[in-house]
């Protein structure tokens, strides 16, 4: 499955400002409660964790369960401290990791 990740974060911010971050990933989030046309349960396959790193420091984390919709989207906030890299990392229950990053310039 090809997976696309989208990040929405400001390119620049003033030091101390609270900025809005948005993360979106393409993923079925197969709940394990659906059945296929033969009536067999489709095995669960979901993303279980999302982490946002700001200059390698974890600033936000989410744990997901099957109640999270397909193509999970989330919005959260952080305080702009210094220029650096924001990493958005999703982990599937299989251990597979999907990540993307963006730079922010703080003045």
């Amino acid at each position: 499955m090809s997976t696309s990740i989208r990040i929405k974060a400001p390119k620049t911010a003033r030091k101390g400002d609270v900025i809005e971050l948005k993360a979106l990933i393409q993923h079925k989030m197969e709940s394990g409660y659906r059945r296929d046309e033969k009536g067999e349960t489709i095995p669960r396959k979901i993303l279980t964790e999302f982490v946002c790193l700001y200059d390698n420091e974890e600033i936000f984390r989410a744990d997901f369960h099957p109640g999270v919709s397909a193509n999970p989207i989330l919005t959260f906030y952080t305080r702009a401290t210094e220029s650096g890299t924001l990493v958005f990392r999703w982990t599937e229950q299989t251990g597979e990791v999907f990540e993307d990053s963006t730079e922010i310039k703080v003045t």
Partner: protein
Amino acid sequence: MTPVVLNRRQLLLGASALGASAYALPVFGAGNGMEAAIKAMFGNGDIAEAKVKLTIPALSENGFSVPFEVEVDSPMTEDNHVTKIAIFSERNPIPLIATYHLSPRSGRAKVNGRIRLAGTQNVHAIAQMSDGSLYRASANSFVTVAACIIL
């Protein structure tokens, strides 16, 4: 198998227990063990109905993707901030939907996302503060097409 015979006292006890659970969850009852799941995560402490604001649409035409927003009234300082926000369903097969971990670096205790709802129900948000205190809120959504047929 031995037949179960209840005397009057046991019947009355059972009836009052039913009454108690109906009081705790007025809409559909705790069919999925949500209150137990909340206790498993946050312990037996009191959870005040304050500080948390949970917003979901009153009518969800598609239970597979219901937007929610939760905001907690907190200054988000080193001494006083939200550490955790958890979203629970009282009707989904698994009560816990998602947990969000925050810190003073969050700046603002607000999160939103999209969840699945297996039918009309109340959704609950519980927030834990840095001093360990707990707050909660709930919101109801009428779901036209449920996300999950098997309950």
